[in-house]
């Protein structure tokens, strides 16, 4: 599948934003959410900016962005519709939660409830996003449970790394320590999920073949000897994207090292520095963790699209998928 920049940015950015929101809700429930205005404006502001920026960028790839509101109407059958609705509805608890947490407009007990409801809506939205991909039978690389697991884990993982950094910057030691632990655990889960995802891709039996696509399989090997068109067309541009195996392996390594191992190492060493009275070095390392994580997850998301092969390619020379 063609890895469209807008969609890659949308899923990584809104994933990180929702991830931050989920942990802010959890911190509130644990009684650890610092109620300081500047910090509050910054973290909630960043989380909202990531979510809204992501959603906006996802409308850029529409042919008719001015009609985007119509996308909310078919929630009975369409995961894309459900995602839009979940995102819009989620803004209510998340927005109120932010107001309570930053400006103390109500009791924090209510804030905790709003935060947890918001966190649930954030998870639900991530789940809907994942299901848009996982529900497509035409793309076996997406049509499996590791796709859903990946989206549910990587967003919160990324959000946790970002929060661990921001909490350390503001010197909220206890909350920062908790977030480092959470982030570390999420990274290990994330790495496990992605490892299983890639293993699944490498070993899953073929769903469809050139033989079943043409129904000529009983005649033997099926090869296309004449294409309907000798220039590119929409189908090939959108769904016929191919990535060289060698690049896939290299990018896979970049995703694993920068997305998981490096942030994990940075978190561990940063913990030692922060506990040992070297806050500047610790914060610098956490910053490296944040940046590495962004690059790694972007590479992961790019591969998620680039490696996925679509059933229509069977008509254009692909043997099986």
């Amino acid at each position, binding site marked *: 599948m063609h890895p469209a920049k807008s969609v890659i940015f949308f899923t990584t950015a809104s994933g990180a934003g929702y991830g931050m929101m989920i942990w802010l809700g959890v911190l509130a429930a644990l009684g650890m959410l610092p109620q300081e205005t500047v910090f509050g404006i910054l973290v909630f502001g960043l989380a909202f900016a990531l979510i809204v920026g992501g959603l906006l960028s996802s409308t850029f790839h529409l042919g008719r962005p001015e009609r985007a509101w*119509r996308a909310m109407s078919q929630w009975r059958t369409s995961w894309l519709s459900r995602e839009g609705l979940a995102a819009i509805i989620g803004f209510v608890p998340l927005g109120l939660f932010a107001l309570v947490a930053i400006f103390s407009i109500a009791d924090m007990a209510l804030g905790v409830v709003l935060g947890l409801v918001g966190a649930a809506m954030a998870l639900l939205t991530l789940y809907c996003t994942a299901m848009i991909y996982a529900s497509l039978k035409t793309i076996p690389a997406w049509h499996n449970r590791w796709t859903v697991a990946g989206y549910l884990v990587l967003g919160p993982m990324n959000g946790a790394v970002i929060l661990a950094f921001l909490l350390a910057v503001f010197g909220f030691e206890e909350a920062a320590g908790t977030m480092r632990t959470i982030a570390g655990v999420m990274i290990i889960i994330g790495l496990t999920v992605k490892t299983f995802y890639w293993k699944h891709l490498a070993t899953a039996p073929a769903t469809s073949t050139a033989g079943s*696509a*043409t129904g*000529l399989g009983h005649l033997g090997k099926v090869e296309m000897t*004449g294409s309907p068109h000798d220039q590119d*067309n929409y189908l090939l541009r959108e*769904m016929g994207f191919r990535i060289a195996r060698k690049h896939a392996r290299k990018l896979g390594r970049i995703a694993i090292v920068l997305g998981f191992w490096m942030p994990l190492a940075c978190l561990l060493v940063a913990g030692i520095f922060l506990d040992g009275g070297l806050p500047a070095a610790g914060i610098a390392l956490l910053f490296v963790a944040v940046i590495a994580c962004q690059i790694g997850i972007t590479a992961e998301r790019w591969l998620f699209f680039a490696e996925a092969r679509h059933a229509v390619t069977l008509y254009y020379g692909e043997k099986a998928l």
Partner: protein
Amino acid sequence: MTSLPKTTAKKLGLVVDLDICVGCHACAVNCKEWNAGAKSAPLTDYDPYGKKPDGVWFNRVHTYETTDEAGHGQTVHFPRSCLHCEDAPCVTVCPTGASYKREEDGIVLVNEDICIGCKLCSWACPYGAREYDENEGVMKKCTLCVDKIYNENLPEESRVPACVSTCPAGARSFGDLGDPDSEVSKLVAARGGYDLMPEQGTKPVNKYLPPRPRQDGRGGDKAPRMLEHADDSTEGAGLIARWVDKILS
């Protein structure tokens, strides 16, 4: 509404005979011709007279070669268009309700006035039947020539899809595949018409008829497939022939 109808009164569709199709692309061209002026107009072309012409087509003709274990090959021309699936995944993924399946005849259409151009339906279709129009920003697809088959301004015999009426070989048939007594249903039953990618669970309405088995052309009284190599021996040849052979060799 992107919920699929439970049943449709008719199942209008096409039957494509792969034994007859000669790969002339006439159906693809006439499809383009009709639809460039019909419901889905314009059927955009990008760079039509330039070096890289490209555009929206609803029907594409591929050519495949099959090779069996004995190395015998067969060429099959293969037109590919929307199959108007009963369980059309392109319809249920649509977030706007622009994609729908008609209850009265089962035709799958796009309402271009509300399509947002998210392209998800083209991802959901296994058969590559939907093509996005970059200029219009909306998705387009085969309409089963809905504006031709019901068109009362046309003589009755012309009320069939453009690709069907134009096929010079008669490889395409149109009719109600939900009615077991229709001509197309009988044809499918007689020739073992089949579904493309049944494992995708789309339940296509359109059916394909398999190419008939080929005679392999070896042995028997058939003409040899290639020239036998020249005979070196002069055994059995006449006197003059043997004499000429001696001089020449």
